[in-house]
């Protein structure tokens, strides 16, 4: 095995990173088990009290809100992303394909903060949507779009869309074109071909995309911070408030651990639910 030394050299940086991450995680875990000493940056003795505090309605509420916002974002992203991914895979003209790809991928390069600011301009009381609706005479006073879950979800969908589309397109492009052709030869029109063949065969991609979108939004910070403006709180925002306004590092760490555990739990459940799909071999 003379490739062994190379394997070691190539994996060394990754191993180094992993060790760093593990150390950081261990530090967070350690903090989560320490008591908070008000007025001090140093934590107190070992305790499980932080985890008991999680059950307080105030904090449980934030967890619930986070899960709801993430679930809504994942579902809406899927609904918006699927047609885009489908078009990306099936469109044959190279120019149209490139345009689609640019539309889908450019948001990735803009960064979350920039995209979120753009949404503030669109969603604000004097923003694009309200101005348009008012000048059309459809509404008398501005709709409240900023500082609502709706606004947060809309902005998060935009943030998550590229990842969703890329994962769905990967799934769709693995479907051999002979499957829809076979269905067509058997008398199925375009809608039936899609519903009975293409859609079921793309479900592994749907599961992958949805889980990724869910996990991706679970740690969202800038978007709920800017568009939620304190009225829509997600876990990251709570961690920020506790850690950097109250300097309650132990409880902030506890929230991180709990958030991580919750994400793992939800992803695990989704994986379990999608187990039958993994038996679909699409070549």
């Amino acid at each position, binding site marked *: 095995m003379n490739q062994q030394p190379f394997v070691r050299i190539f994996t060394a940086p990754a191993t180094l990173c992993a060790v760093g991450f593990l150390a950081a995680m261990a530090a967070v875990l350690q903090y989560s088990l320490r008591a908070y000493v008000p007025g001090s940056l140093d934590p107190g003795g070992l305790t499980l009290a932080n985890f008991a505090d999680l059950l307080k309605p105030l904090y449980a509420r934030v967890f619930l809100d986070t899960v709801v916002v993430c679930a809504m974002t994942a579902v809406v992203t899927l609904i918006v992303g699927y047609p885009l991914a489908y078009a990306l895979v099936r469109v044959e003209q190279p120019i149209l394909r490139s345009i689609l790809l640019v539309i889908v991928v450019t948001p990735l390069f803009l960064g979350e903060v920039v995209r979120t600011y753009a949404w503030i301009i669109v969603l604000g009381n004097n923003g694009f949507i309200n101005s348009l609706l008012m000048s059309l005479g459809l509404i008398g006073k501005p709709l409240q779009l900023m500082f609502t879950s709706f606004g947060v979800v809309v902005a998060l969908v935009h943030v998550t869309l590229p990842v969703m589309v890329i994962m769905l397109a990967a799934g769709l492009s693995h479907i*051999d074109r*002979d*499957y829809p*052709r*076979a*269905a*067509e*030869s*058997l*008398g*199925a*029109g375009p809608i*039936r071909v899609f519903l*009975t*063949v293409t859609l*079921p*065969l793309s479900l592994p991609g749907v599961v992958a995309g949805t889980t990724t979108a869910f996990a991706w939004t679970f740690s969202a910070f800038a978007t709920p911070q800017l568009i939620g403006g304190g009225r829509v709180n997600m876990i990251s925002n709570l961690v920020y408030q506790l850690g950097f306004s109250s300097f309650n590092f132990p409880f902030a760490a506890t929230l991180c651990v709990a958030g991580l555990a919750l994400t793992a739990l939800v992803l695990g459940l989704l994986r379990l639910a999608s187990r039958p799909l993994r*038996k*679909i*071999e*699409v*070549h």
Partner: protein
Amino acid sequence: MKPSANLEGEQAAVHFDVVSKRFDDVVALNDVTLGIGRSEFVTLLGPSGCGKTTLLKLAAGFLGPDGGSISIEGKRVNDIPTYQRGIGMMFQNYALFPHMSVAENVAYGLKTRRVPRAERDKRVADALALVKLMGMENRKPRQLSGGQQQRVALARALVINPTVLLLDEPFSALDKSLRSSMQVELREIQRKLGLTTIFVTHDQGEALSMSDRMAVMSEGRIRQLGSPVDVYRSPADPFVASFVGDNNRLRGQLVSIQAEQAIVALGDALVQVPGERLSGLEKSAAVDLFVRPEQFRIVAPGEPCVIKGSVVAQIYQGGHVDLQIECSGSVGDRLLVRSPGEQAVLRWPMGAPVGVAIQADRCSVFPAA
């Protein structure tokens, strides 16, 4: 070369009328005309890129022609989508729906036709019985062997009583022994049901053994259309001669031509060959003789022969022996000679000097390319 013995539009189950198709700058089909009779098994044979698959896809409706018209059962189908053509198709990789059971796969075409449940179940059972797959109804495709998957694909295509069965290299994924038994079985079923069938393959052996008629294609044209025996015995041009069956190409010189017979010089020897494809050729023009391996006979040195050489390879095939003869002179470098009976192995050992005689009246002769 114009394809002969073509069926006219009315009699044909499937008729391609001066059909052309191009992909960007590449001409895939160049004014192809082909009629396929009812219950006929027609093979489209050719190397990859010859247009055979394009022709099949045009019949299926997966592609539209750039020119000409296609009709099925006398009805022009150019603008009719695949799902309204009533075809049955078998794909190279079978394309069985992986998320459906065997029974669901077979039932698919009946569901799209809104066949009532009871009748559907019966027809699915009948179709699975026809391909000998009873008891497999609830399996998923991935739980089946390659041969069984192919049977499901066949049942799925047959159960809808298609007007025409389209086969896209369906045997290429099977191992050799399974392939030949499936070929026989498919042909039996096709005969029994009287199904009009278009079969695409690049395997000339498959084409020879299965077809009623075969169309040999190259570069978007049909080079020859005829029964396997016709195509094998009298190929229409050098391409067909070298593509279908084993053939040896010998370079010779035209000495004289009279009516149907021509005299050709092969090195020092003169042979009398059929001359119908040499008309108008100048004397002493170069010609190519295509001689099948079984049209040679090996003789001991000293006996009258056309070519002299020595044995360089023996390929024992059980029932017969293939010998490779390296020959001196300008005629050709290596000849493949098929000798019936296994005694040839002992009679003509490696390195032995031999003479080769030609059954010249049955070989094909064309002006040299």
